[in-house]
């Protein structure tokens, strides 16, 4: 498998938040008890039960109103601060090819002081009290392992989210940026090259309220795993997912033959 990355193309994002709901459904996450706080953005931030959310902002640029939306989520860093900070062996995995960093069942708060939360420079890592372990976007490894895209990407109606080979995604992002620069001079790619998520933004990153990178939290330490080493549980999930798909097809056939 070639190295994969995730592209968030805000030029196509319509802020529908299908990704947010798909994530909750696929990961079986509890809804939060929210209140209207004057924005379409809700929940206000990521949490132990919210892996991803669309951030909304209204800014005036050159006297013109911009209504900006972008999905926010874990960057799946090549050198993840959370994994660096975690003292429990095997609790945070990095699957190199998929670019996925995820918390495993080995996570055990009785063995640590939740260092991973502070280790994440973007405040993405959160603690889920009910599950009693750290939670964040997993990039749906059980889907990726069978060749499917993450649940959020599958749901996106406009193609604002895509997941694919790194070279190809970077190329698309760079080409599109050049076009966008003509319309929005402040358009930029966010971030550099060491995450497994690229944002194509039509305005400055801070206008989207995406967290600033805090470079002091980065430490260089290789800690990567390959496909063969990914936890067995995800492979089983993946197989079950594939099995579910073929069952669906069988059922459709069955219904059709019944009607005949």
């Amino acid at each position, binding site marked *: 498998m070639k190295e994969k990355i995730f592209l968030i193309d805000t030029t*196509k994002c*319509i*802020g*529908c*938040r*299908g990704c*947010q*709901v798909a994530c*909750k*459904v696929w990961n079986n996450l509890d*809804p*939060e*008890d*929210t*209140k*209207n*706080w*004057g*924005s*379409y953005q*809700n*929940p206000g931030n990521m949490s132990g039960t919210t892996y991803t959310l669309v951030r909304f902002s*209204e800014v*005036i640029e050159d006297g013109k*109103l*911009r*209504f*900006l*939306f972008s999905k926010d989520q874990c960057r799946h860093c090549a050198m993840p601060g959370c994994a660096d900070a975690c003292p429990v062996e095997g609790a945070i995995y990095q699957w190199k090819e998929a670019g996925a960093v995820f918390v495993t069942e080995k996570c055990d708060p009785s063995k640590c002081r939740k260092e991973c939360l502070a280790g994440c420079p973007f405040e993405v890592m959160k603690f889920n009290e009910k599950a009693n372990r750290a939670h964040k976007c997993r990039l749906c490894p059980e889907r990726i392992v069978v060749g499917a895209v993450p649940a959020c990407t599958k749901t996106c*109606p*406009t*193609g604002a989210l895509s997941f694919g080979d790194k070279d190809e995604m970077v190329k698309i992002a760079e080409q599109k940026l050049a076009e966008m620069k003509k319309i929005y001079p402040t358009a930029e790619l966010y971030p550099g090259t060491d995450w497994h998520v690229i944002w194509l933004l039509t305005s400055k990153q801070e206008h989207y309220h995406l967290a600033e990178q805090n470079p002091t939290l980065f430490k260089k330490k290789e800690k990567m795993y390959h496909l063969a080493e990914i936890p067995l549980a995800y492979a089983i999930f993946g197989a079950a997912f594939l099995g579910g798909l073929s069952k669906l097809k069988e059922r*459709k056939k069955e*219904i*059709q033959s019944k*009607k005949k």
Partner: protein
Amino acid sequence: MIIGSNAAENHPISFKWVTRAMEKGAKLISVDPRFTRTSSKADIYAPIRPGTDIAFIGGMINYILQNEKYNKDYVVNYTNATFLVNPNFSFKLGEFSGFDSIKKVYADKSTWKYQLDENGIPKRDITLSDPNCIFQLIKKHFSRYSIDAVCKITGTPRDIYEKVLKCYPETGANDKSGTILYAMGTTQHTYGSQNVRSYSVLQSLLGNMGIAGGGINALRGESNVQGSTDMGLLFHILPGYLKSPDKADKTVDEYAKKYYEEKSKDPKSADWWNNGRKYLVSLLKAFYGERATAENDFCFDHIAKLSGNYSHMSIFEDMNKGIVKGLFCFGQNPAVGGPNVNFELKAMEKLDWLVAADLWETETMDFWKRPGALPEANATEVFVFPAKASMEKEGSITNSGRWMQWRYQGSDAPGVAQTDLWMINQLMKRIRALYAKEGGAFTKGVLDLEWNYAEEPDCHVIAKEVNGYDIKAGKLLPGFAKLAADGTTSSGNWLYCGSFTEDGNMAARRIKEDAPNKIGLYPKWAWCWPVNRRIIYNRASVDLSGNPLAAQKWVVKWDPSAMDGKGGWIGDVPDGPWPPMTVDPEKTKLPFIMRPEGVACLFSADLADGPFPEHYEPVESPVANYIPNGCQCSPAVYLYESQKTAFGTSKEYPIVATTYRLTEHWQAGAMTRNLSYLVELMPEMFVEISEELAASKGLKQGDIIEVSTIRGSIKAKAMVTKRLKPFNINGKKVHMIGVPWHWGYSGLAKGQSANNLTPHVGDVNTRIPEFKAFLCNIKKGVEA
């Protein structure tokens, strides 16, 4: 151009295609009172005061006519621009000729008629210069819509409006297409039908009808509104848009002659509705089977005849008067969705019984125990039918592009929930059994019905019945050309004839193979009415010799070598087989086959409120009508007896309000306010308000705002936003607030209903309520 629609929010899937078009270089114009998620994606965002579409489009029409930006060949050949109208036609003081100012209706439309020659064919002037030709009439009518006047009415900044004028008329070129997406922002006005008419006039002038990437596209309020309208769910139509007969129509013959037969003497007009008799008789055969015979006029006397208006508001008016005593609500929640809902709730209290079928307990089912009501004082008996959701049953959905798509059942329904089909079947079976035993009102009509469905009805049986049969042969018909008026054929809906044939269920096809023109028609994917034609009026996409106007995206073209050298159309299913004008001037037919005149109408006598769109103000408006026509509101607006004092003035209620939906909730909220993931996204009722208005009222983000109209008041959270701005209307600052209408007093997420505020008045033609523009006042409130 997206106007009266917020496609990105309310039809997010449609935006997949808008996004793709933009990637290929399309320009997007968003015309909306609020800066929405759609506007955020647009090349041009044009703010517009609610209710001023006709001024906005009228100004475009005027600009196009004055600057000769129209598609001249198209206008001459395929519109009624060249037709001469009765010289006595006039437009004075805001009224077209023929208005009865006492009855408030256009009682005499004789002056709206075409001048006819000695053969009864409309007279035409292809030079477009006769003062009575429609081209000259329309030019004169819209000459009052100058850029200056338009901007004073709509509040659109002049520089932005000029950008729109520069951009959109470019689509008048043969190789360019312009399309309009609209929705309830267009229709929910007292002149909603005329708003739509203004779009069709604009599109016809630019030659944007019948072509690839053209048209005016209604983004329907629900996924299967198209299907339900096709099937005659509205009171004024039978399935297939056949007119509901009037109580004066005594026989099939009278009906057919009155509405359908010999409406055109022009040999070039296909006048397809001339076949109306065949479709009605086939429908009656589907309804009454063997019992419908030529001798008993195919049971024509059994079908309901109109003796008034039976639209939503009229039903509630009659309920309030105690005339309507029982109400069935299938997937409808009028206790949240109805206009002036306080009035409608009080009317519901007068019901003897109410039956409501829905997925969850709705405000309509709970109306007797709503906040402030006295349950013990309410005698209405309420029956609740738990219903299956669309994913829990098999059947068809027809989309806005008229594609009938078959869907399989995705999952089982909880508990004893049933399909609507099951409910209606059981109800009718039991009613018929009672009638057979005891008799009752209209016994013959009930017992003559063909009703042989199984206890567990099969939707395939219904789909076949809708398609229709050659009765003698017992075979499914291949298409409506085979329907007959002599009782030998049946069809539940002539437009769907061909959808389920001896070759199988066409709507269930999923073949991913494009048509030869490669414009994305996918003719073997599902099925499209009529006759699987994907773009209607497609013969308007070619010149008089049958050559496509836009070669790179042709829809149909005449191929002289087709049909063994006899010549024929290739590409999409053409709107009729007739050869092009220059190929065979004798056999040729004009492209707009559903119109008696055979062409698109810039001027239409069919509407109840005038042949041209004209700007009037909403019934509740903050300003006087600037267009000097002498009428503040449409003169033909119908005011219900109960509502005569239910309208406020700008003195007490100076702020404009408009209602709308959000991506995260659905209609009256019954389906989404009970889903915790969606409630998490949009948890509470709110009101959108500009920073300027909020500051002047001392309102901050998240404060409680109290909104009141003469009809009622609500409290909600204030959402202070840059996306709303006051309008400059002819020098006067006019503020607007935005009110989503999803919330009610039942369900997981509760909130006060926007429809406590809205007026009970509607469009002259359709009576769709004026939800989109009314007057209110606001103040800082305290938590209820």
